[in-house]
């Protein structure tokens, strides 16, 4: 009997031990609600990425915590609520905010993050499970209620979110339980995932958002109370003067006064509540509150921003690396001049820099630096104002397209770093049509086409560019090339705010556009070529065939079919010489050799998600 008991107990213990051993890393293990959910849900559609490893196959040496990573930016971060404009430094803001999901290196938003998994119930309804254990920098908990609050905050016009029009197809978001939401769409919305891998899905603390609302409510209520008080005074005066006009008139005037008084009382109550919440608080625009690996430590406008490690960042814990992120913090100093930035890098005052192409020769053989050349999903193009008389004629658009020597442009503007563009999508993007070839450089053909279009002696064109040195140089190169075909390209270089204004009012014939971070085709194409979109370029073009295809692509959930639609869009735009696509951008970054943890192969495959999952560290945990 005794031996049987021992046998059962031993068996139970053994089972328990075996069960513990058998647990793969990444199974659901949490004891309390606040513990981090360690489950990662991989499916056929969302398979485990190749960069999802942190052992020696990723990097030879073990990460060590320590040191403040020093970086720089041309301008101060700007407004720190990513839904407000302007934000000047997205890289820093990305370190502060987690997002619902991430795009991978093929520009498809399908890597789960704070959104753990999702499934369509029908074409207009999506159920999404959220991760437990995510905490914001101010201690607030992320859950379905927080997400709903944020999404509704963006949708509320009064909050001035520029990202509001991005989520227009969203009907509503419903809380199913604390960690499940149901999304309801007005129409089939294939780019939903891309949108929520982007700014609308950058998580902001609901506590901070409520404070922000309270701050703006305080100002608004203050104004309204003053206005209502004036109305009350006027109503009371009216009541006093109405005494001689009869009881009925007096009653009416008094009723009006009472109504005002009640309204004032209500507003004062709301104002007191708002003030209580907002007292001593910093608006989100001045201090971001996310749930990302770093949180704002201090910021001096125009000078620097310093972040420190978020001690409760969930990701590291979810994969068994609780010491992530490894840097103690990040400091981003504002340095406007490129030459000064490079001097700081070489002196070891900063750890990383996006290199201006002309500086490449100075860094490529530097023994203290690692230099990375990476193709980027940016397309540089010359955009026609299709409302402008010359460009209503396709022959003129063809003439301009053939007048530009793209290789020479890349040589001069990008020091040879760049890929000649055939059409809108970069050559590594799934929507890129591989059958389209770059337009040839042929100035003689260009002149011939201009003569056929009625401009045998050339013409003057009005150009619009930003006034930063790189844009001015770009404009000068285009000007010189167009001069060879007798086009006088008159450039107006202006600041970004004026540029937006003039672009919106179509005060140009030809301008430069850099389509940046082209990920999901829908948002980029819609912003650039759909006349109904709310963007600077909205009335610039009007190609009904392309527009119809773009809208069809928006509603197509099948990836293969969608890809074909967008490749067809490229063909339509290409054949119509809709714009002059010039080149796809290449990025050069230099990082001090003391910074470890970068795996190039995984970075190219993982893109932004690799950057989020594989934070760097200093050698020996010390910044020297």
């Amino acid at each position: 009997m005794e031996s049987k008991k021992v046998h059962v107990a031993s068996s139970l213990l053994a089972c328990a031990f075996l069960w513990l051993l058998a647990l793969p890393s990444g199974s659901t293990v949490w004891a309390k609600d606040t513990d981090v959910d360690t489950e990662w849900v991989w499916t056929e559609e969302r398979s485990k990425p190749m960069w999802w490893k942190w052992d020696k196959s990723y990097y030879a040496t073990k990460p060590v915590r320590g040191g403040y990573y020093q970086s720089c930016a041309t301008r101060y971060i700007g407004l720190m609520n990513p839904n407000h404009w302007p934000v000047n430094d997205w890289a820093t803001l990305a370190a502060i905010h987690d997002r619902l999901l991430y795009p991978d290196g093929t520009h498809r938003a399908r890597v789960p993050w704070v959104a753990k998994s999702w499934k369509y119930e029908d074409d207009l309804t999506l159920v999404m499970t959220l991760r437990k254990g995510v905490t914001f920098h101010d201690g607030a908990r992320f859950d379905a209620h927080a997400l709903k609050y944020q999404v509704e905050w963006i949708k509320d016009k009064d909050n001035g979110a520029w990202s509001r029009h991005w989520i227009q197809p969203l009907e509503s978001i419903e809380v199913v339980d604390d960690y499940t939401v149901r999304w309801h769409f007005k129409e089939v919305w294939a780019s939903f995932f891309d949108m929520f891998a982007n700014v609308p899905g950058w998580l902001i603390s609901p506590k901070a958002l409520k404070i922000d609302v309270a701050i703006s409510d305080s100002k608004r209520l203050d104004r309204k109370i003053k206005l209502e008080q004036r109305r009350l005074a006027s109503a009371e005066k009216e009541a006093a003067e109405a005494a001689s006009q009869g009881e009925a008139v007096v009653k009416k005037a008094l009723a009006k006064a009472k109504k005002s008084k009640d309204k004032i009382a209500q507003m004062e109550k709301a104002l007191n509540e708002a003030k209580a919440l907002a007292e001593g608080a910093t608006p989100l625009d001045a201090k971001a509150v996310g749930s990302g690996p770093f949180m704002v430590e201090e910021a001096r406008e125009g000078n620097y921003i310093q972040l420190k490690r978020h001690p409760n960042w969930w990701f590291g814990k979810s994969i068994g690396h609780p010491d992530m992120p490894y840097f103690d913090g990040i400091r981003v100093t504002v340095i406007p001049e490129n030459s000064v930035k490079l001097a700081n890098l070489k002196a070891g005052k900063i750890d990383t820099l996006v290199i201006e192409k002309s500086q490449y020769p100075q860094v490529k053989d530097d023994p203290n630096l690692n230099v990375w050349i990476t193709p980027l999903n940016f397309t540089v193009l010359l955009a026609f104002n299709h409302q402008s008389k010359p460009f209503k004629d396709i022959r003129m658009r063809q003439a301009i397209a053939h007048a530009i020597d793209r290789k020479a442009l890349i040589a001069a503007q990008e020091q040879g770093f760049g890929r000649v563009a055939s059409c809108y999508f970069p050559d590594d993007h799934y929507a890129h049509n591989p059958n389209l070839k770059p337009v040839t450089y042929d100035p003689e053909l260009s002149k011939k086409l201009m003569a056929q279009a009625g401009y045998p002696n050339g013409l003057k064109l009005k150009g619009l560019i930003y006034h930063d040195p790189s844009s001015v140089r770009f404009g000068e190169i285009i000007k010189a090339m167009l001069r060879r075909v007798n086009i006088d390209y008159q450039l107006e270089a202006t600041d970004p705010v004026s540029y937006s204004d003039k672009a919106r009012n179509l005060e140009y014939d030809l301008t430069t556009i850099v389509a940046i971070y082209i990920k999901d085709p829908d948002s980029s194409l819609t912003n650039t070529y759909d006349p109904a979109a709310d963007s600077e370029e909205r009335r610039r073009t009007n190609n009904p065939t392309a527009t119809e295809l773009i809208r069809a692509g928006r509603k197509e959930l099948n990836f293969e079919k969608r890809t074909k639609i967008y490749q067809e869009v490229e063909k339509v735009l290409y054949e119509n010489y809709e714009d002059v696509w010039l080149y796809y951008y290449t990025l050069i970054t230099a990082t001090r050799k003391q910074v470890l943890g970068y795996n190039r192969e995984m970075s190219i495959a993982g893109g932004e998600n690799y950057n989020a999952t594989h934070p760097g560290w200093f050698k020996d945990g010390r910044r020297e």
Partner: protein
Amino acid sequence: MTDPAIAQEFEPRRKSTVGFKAVMRTLFRQKLSIIALIIIVFLFGLAVFAPLVAPYPPEEPDFYNVLKGPSAKHWLGTDDLGRDLLSRVIYGARVSMTVGMACTIFSLMLGTFLGLLAGFRGGLTDQVIMRLVDMIMIFPGLIFVLVLAAALGPGMINIIIAITLFGWVGVARLVRGQVLAVREAPYVEAAKAVGASHWRTMFKHVFPNCTAPLIVAAALGLGGAVGMETGAAFLGIGVQPPTPSWGRELRTGFTYLTTTPLFSIAPGALITLAILSFVLLGDGLRDALDPRLRGIMKKR
């Protein structure tokens, strides 16, 4: 009727070859002034003969040779569009010297006229002109010029207008001061007494006594005008690309200071040289024209 002998007694000392020679002698005794003069002549020569001197057209780009260092083909290297830097700084002299000369001449003309008017007429005319001068002088010069140039729009004509509209005030005050000093002089009274009109008296008898300080002001003003033009071009106002301008080259070159330092150093050095030379020449002329240094006015 005035005794001609008496009138002659008080006739202002006209410029004579003897006086001019004395001025030149004094000037050329100063080594710095000689060097400054040589440099100025050289720079004007560059400006005038730029098409003959510059090895390449200044606006012709070579996109495959951008930001190259000095070589046998391009002595100062190339700029960010592959244009020959040496040619661009040579042609840049045209803009700077032209703007400098034009601004100085127009400032002198306008300032002299208004200064003469204010000093000679006095009363309300003087008050109005001098209050206008005071209003303009409240502003820092470069700010005034930049605001005006920005309002007028880009281009060489507009920058000349902007600099002239600031530059005349100093000349006007100078001339007015000179006029106030001489308008009560006996020869001026004599001229009035023999029936000379205001204008004749102003221009024939009073004005000649202002020429010495005006010459010095012109030389110094040239330096100031060149400085203002390059400052405005540095900030993107004035002549527009692709027209070469020292100030604009300096600004663009600053971006590439660590990669192609000559891009900034070459125009910067020429700007410094030009302004310094004008200032030194102005100093030399002031010393040469100062009667206290050359002896007192001779009586016939």
